[in-house]
C-alpha cells in the first residue's frame, strides 16, 4: 500500500514542481516566490521515496480500518452526492429550502425513520439558524425563492 501512495505522491510533487518552475521570476529579489514551492516539491519527493522503502508493517487495526464494504462506499458516495446537490442549489433555492430538504432526506436516507420528528427538526433547525445568522449576527445567508 505504501508503494502505491508513494508513487501517487511522487507524481503529485512532480506536477507541483513543474508548476513551480513556471512561476514568473523577478530580477533583484534575493528570495523569489518560487524558492519555497521548489523546496517543498523536492522535500515531498524525498519523503515519498522514504515511504516507498518504509518496511514498518501496518498494525492489523490499520488494515481493518481500510476495509470498507462496497455497499457502504455506495452510501458514502450518495451522501457526497447529496452534499454536492445541496451546494449546487444553495444560492438558487435559498438556505431555508435547501437545508430543510437536505436535513430531511439525508437523515431519512441514513436510516432515521421517525418521519414526524425528522420533519420537525428539518423545519425548526434551519429556521432558527436562519434567524440567528440573518438577524442577530447580520450574516446574510442566501434568501433564494422565499420572500424572507
Amino acid at each position: 500500500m505504501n508503494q502505491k501512495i508513494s508513487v501517487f505522491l511522487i507524481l503529485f510533487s512532480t506536477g507541483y514542481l513543474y508548476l513551480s518552475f513556471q512561476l514568473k521570476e523577478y530580477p533583484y529579489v534575493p528570495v523569489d516566490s518560487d524558492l519555497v514551492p521548489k523546496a517543498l516539491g523536492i522535500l515531498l519527493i524525498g519523503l515519498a521515496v522514504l515511504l516507498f522503502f518504509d518496511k514498518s508493517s501496518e498494525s492489523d487495526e490499520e488494515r481493518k480500518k481500510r476495509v470498507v464494504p462496497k455497499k457502504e462506499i455506495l452510501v458514502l458516495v450518495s451522501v457526497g452526492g447529496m452534499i454536492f446537490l445541496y451546494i449546487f442549489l444553495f444560492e438558487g433555492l435559498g438556505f431555508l429550502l435547501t437545508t430543510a430538504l437536505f436535513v430531511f432526506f439525508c437523515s431519512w436516507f441514513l436510516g432515521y425513520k421517525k418521519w414526524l420528528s425528522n420533519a420537525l427538526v428539518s423545519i425548526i433547525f434551519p429556521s432558527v439558524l436562519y434567524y440567528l445568522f440573518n438577524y442577530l449576527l447580520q450574516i446574510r445567508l442566501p434568501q433564494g425563492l422565499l420572500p424572507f
Partner: protein
Amino acid sequence: MGALDGLMQGFQIAFSLEGLLFVLIGVVTGTLIGMMPGLGPISAIAIMIPVTYGMNPSTALVMMAGVYYGAVFGGSTSSILLNAPGISGTVATSFDGYPMAQRGEAGKALAIAAISSFTGGTVSVVLLMLFAPALAQVAVSFGPPQYFALMLLGLTAISSLSDGSTIKALISATLGFIVATIGIDGQTGTNRFTFGNPNLMEGIDFLVIALGLFAIAEVCFLVLKRKDQSLSNQANIGNLKISKQDFKEMRGPMTRQSFLGFLLGVLPGAGATIASFIGYITEKRIAKKPEEFGKGSVKGLAAPETANNAATSGAFVPLLSLGIPGSGTTAVMLGAFLVLGIQPGPLLVQDHPDVFWGIIASMYIGNVFLLILNLPLIPYIAKILNISRPLLISLVIVFSLIGVYSISFSTFDLYLLLLFGVVGYLMRLLSFPAAPFILAFILGGMMEQAFRQALTASGGSLMVFINDPISVSLLIVSILSFVVPFIRGRKKTQ
C-alpha cells in the same frame, strides 16, 4: 502593567454580564460538541467561529476559550460513558473510566473526571498567567530567523510525536505547507497555483481545511458507524458521590499531573494526548497497586483527566506569547484570533491587554462553570448522546457548510470543503495524521514570510540562521526531534 492589575482588568471583562454569559455559552456548546463521538475541540472551535463575527474580540475569544476546554471535558464524558473517546486526548480517560461505568459507577467516574479537570485546569491557568507574559518579554527580541526556527520546531515536533509513522506525519505536514502556497504571494505579488481562478487568489481559507479535514472527514466515519446502537444504553449513570478515600487517592495524581500536564502542553507538538498518556503511565509506575489500573482505578482516571486539561491551558502559552500554535487545535484557535483581527504574539499583552487578561480570567471562571455545570447536570447533558446518528450527521454537515459560507459567501469554497472532506477521509483511512497538515497549513504562510525576510535581510546568506544562538539551538532541536525517532524505529525493526 503588573500581572495582578492585568488580571483585575481581565476579571472586569469576564465578570461583566456579557462576559459571564459568553463564557457559559462557550463552555456549554463546547461540552455538547465535544461529547459527540468523533467531534473534538478542532471541530468545535471551527464550527463556532462564524458565531463570533461582529462580536467584540475579547468577548469572542473568551467564548472560544470556553469552547476549547469545554470540548476537552465533553470528550471525557463520552469516553467514560461509551468507551468512545471523541478525541485522542481522552483515550487514556477511557482506560479506567469505562470499567468504572460498567461497574455501575458512571456517576462517580464523571464526578472524578470533573474534579480532576477542574484542578488541572485551575492550577495550569495560574502557571499560564505567570509564564506567558515572561515568555512574551523574551520573545519581543525575536526576529525572522528565530521565528522561522521556532515554527520549524513546532512542525517537526508534532510530526515526530503524532502516533503512527513519522514519515507519514512529515508528508502530511509537507502537503499542508504546499496547500498554503496557493494564492497571491505576499511579497512579490506573483499568482501561485491559482490556475487563473479568482477564488483561489487569496488562498484557501483555514476554515475550509479545518472543517474539511476534521468535521467532514469524521462525518464519513459516522456514516459508516451509523448503525452502532451503543449510544443510548447508558441512561442511568448512578450516584455522583465520591468517598473520602477516593479523594485521598486523587490528591497525589492531581497535584503531580497538573504541573506535568502543563509543561507538556507548553512544549510544541505534545499537547493533551501525550500529556494524558504520560500522566497515566507515570501514575501507574509509581502506584502502590499498579494492577488496579485498567480495571476502574480512581488514580488511573484522575491522572489523564488532570493532565489533559492542564495541557490545554499549557498550549495557550506559546499561542498567546509567541503567536505560534503548538498543536492542531491551537492552530485552529489561532485562526479564530486572526478572523477577529487579533494577532497573538509577544505584543499581545501590551497591545490588547483586554484580550490577553480577559482570556486568562475567563479560564478561571470557565473552570468553575464546568464544575458547577457538570456535577449536577451531567445526567441531563448525557441525554444528548441519545440523539439519533443519522440526524446528527446531517446537522454536522449543515453546520460545516454554513461555517464556510459565512466567511466567504462563495459556493466555490463549499465545493473545496467537500474536496478536503474526501482528502481528510482518505488520509484517516491510510493512517496519515491530519493535525500536522493543519498546523503546517496555518504556519506555512508565516514560515515562508519569516524565512524570506531573514534571507532578504542577510542578502541571501543562510548564515543568518546559524549566527544566532537562539535560532541555531532551535534548529538543532527540531532536526533531532525527527532524526531520533527515525533511528529508534530503525533499531526496533532490526
